[in-house]
């Protein structure tokens, strides 16, 4: 199976309304689904994927657990959304301005949802989790707006949009996953400047709660991810 960037169909523009510029969207602080996601360049991958089941996905670490909030404001444990099915989990913040970051993750999740919709055998085996690491801004209602129609049951797989009550609950999760948050320091004062960035990472978690693969923007390709999911299902 040779895959390349052209394998990804473009996001349908009409689905989420008109395209809004990345900067304008960020400045308006709209917590809407990232309609600009299609602007992100997909990683070009030009290689032959090993067939599912012919390689091993080692246990990298146990996925951390802790309290999270659903879009309805219910307090739950994260493990409720990361066990029993194979989970793809990605951290985002709804105001993320980096096209190679959160919008790319959203688009890939959306593409995976579409692909799994066409593979009924996978539908009940996989779930998606989008977790905010900006709890001060990304309240449950903001996450609900961000999720948009993805929360509707269209016969596809489950996609949970979660946040945390505060930084206190967030940090063990962020640290546990190794989802680093980057910041810059003002040379003159030595103090951090108030901008935040993160390296896009998506975590593949098996049914027992172990992280089995970590995708960055260089390996965040739906077909590669689906291949890994199938590999786990063959264990």
């Amino acid at each position, binding site marked *: 199976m040779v895959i390349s960037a052209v394998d990804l169909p473009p996001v349908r523009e009409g689905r989420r309304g008109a395209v809004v510029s990345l900067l304008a969207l960020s400045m308006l602080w709209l917590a809407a689904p990232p309609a600009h996601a299609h602007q992100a360049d997909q*990683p070009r991958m030009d290689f032959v994927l090993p067939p599912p089941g012919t390689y091993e996905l080692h246990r990298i670490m146990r996925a951390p657990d802790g309290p999270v909030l659903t879009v309805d404001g219910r307090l739950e444990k994260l493990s409720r959304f990361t066990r029993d099915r194979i989970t793809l989990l990605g951290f985002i913040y709804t105001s993320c301005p980096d096209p190679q*970051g959160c919008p790319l993750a959203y688009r890939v999740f959306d593409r995976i949802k579409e692909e799994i919709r066409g593979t009924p055998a996978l539908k009940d085996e996989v779930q998606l989790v989008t977790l905010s690491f900006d709890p001060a801004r990304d309240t449950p209602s903001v996450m609900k707006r961000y999720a948009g129609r993805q929360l509707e049951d269209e016969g596809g797989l489950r996609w949970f949009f979660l946040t945390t009550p505060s*930084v206190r609950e967030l940090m063990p999760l962020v640290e546990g996953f190794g989802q*680093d948050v980057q*910041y810059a320091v003002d040379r003159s004062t030595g103090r951090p400047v108030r*901008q935040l960035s993160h390296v896009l990472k998506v975590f593949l978690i098996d049914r027992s709660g172990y992280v089995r693969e970590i995708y*960055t923007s260089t390996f965040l390709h739906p077909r590669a991810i689906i291949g890994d999911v199938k590999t786990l299902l063959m264990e």
Partner: protein
Amino acid sequence: MHLIGPKSAASIPAAVAIATLLGASVARGDETCNSPYMAKLIKGQEDYVYVWALGVDGLGDGSDKLVTVDVDPKSKSYGKVLNQVSVGTRGEAHHMGFTDDRRRIWAGGLSGGDIYVFDIAADPARPRLVKTIKDLAAKTGFIGPHTYYALPGRMLVQALSNDKDKGGVTGIALYNNEGEFMARYPMPLDNGGDGYGYDLAVNPTKNVLLTSSFTGHANYMRPLGELIKDEAAMKRFGKTMVAWDLKAMKPQTVMQVPGAPLEIRWSLNPGDDWAVTAAALTSKLWLVRRDASGQWQAKEVATIGDPSKIPLPVDISIRRDSKGLWVNTFMDGMTRYFDLSNPEAPTQTYEKHTGRQVNMISQSWDGTRVYITSSLLANWDKAGADNEQFLRGFQWDGKELKPAFEIDFTKEKLGRAHHMKLGSKVLRTAYVAPGPR
């Protein structure tokens, strides 16, 4: 504790710039040939050069140590040693590598199997030894950990030898970022493979891992003058490179590259599908490239110095745009620059004698600053006055390497200066930022 985030619309353009600066996408090159999974590269002025130094008996505490040098020209302590962390023992300190989040440096010694993990996130100027991984040999049978190469959440460790016969047959170990062993991958012995290892480097967009090959503990720990007289031992050097399926971690193609191919540098320009290496014993540059059928092939593309005089090319450093390559040759102390505009035919355009013995070479992201160290191996370094041990900084204007500073590692009682990594105090990675609560 406070998680920082964009606080106002006015901060967004800067946030975009920061995101770009920090590089959430694949690196197009690197400041010192780091893993492309290491998203945070120093594209401006680096503040520090970390030097992993071999201990010398009678010099300071005689132990291997990680030395921090201030290389910010605007600093009052420019060109001075800021800090040193001794590991309390001497074990042939050699190479090191960052974890993918650049929070930690892994460094090891070739005489055994210990791997030292230093935290550089808390205080980049003062690394802290936080863990010593001691199970490499027990878990894998490999010794002499050499290359540390970051994958997301984990580290590939290429070893040089084994604990059975201490020859060159070895393999790769996989650890998670916490230093917990995950898997072992022996170097191939079939399909032309010699089982030897040295460096490894990944091209994620091609799903390929390239490995090279050197020699085993029995050779690299032996005095060089004695070794080169041993005809049988001199046959026990690597002569292969291997292209692996990165995802499956399975060898795919064994390429014959005689003369101990060492450091591997990928061109990560979009669309490029080639890497270069230097074969130490034959003094040749080799190009590894995919052919029209998709097979990885290696071919000799240039000669470094006069091979009959055995200049011994050791480290190489590729420009971020892959248009040029620095090559250090240990025996003659020369630093050469090759025009790599056509990787099929590299052409030497500059050379300078930079020391009586030179080994590692690193350059800044923009290529204007070049750093060189002196030590190869404790028993291979020269003797007497030729045994200079230093870190030398240079300015490169495209025409001339101009000395900027020098630290005498013997005079400073630091030991033999070997591998370098660059550090920054203005680019931090943290789960939680320090700041107002």
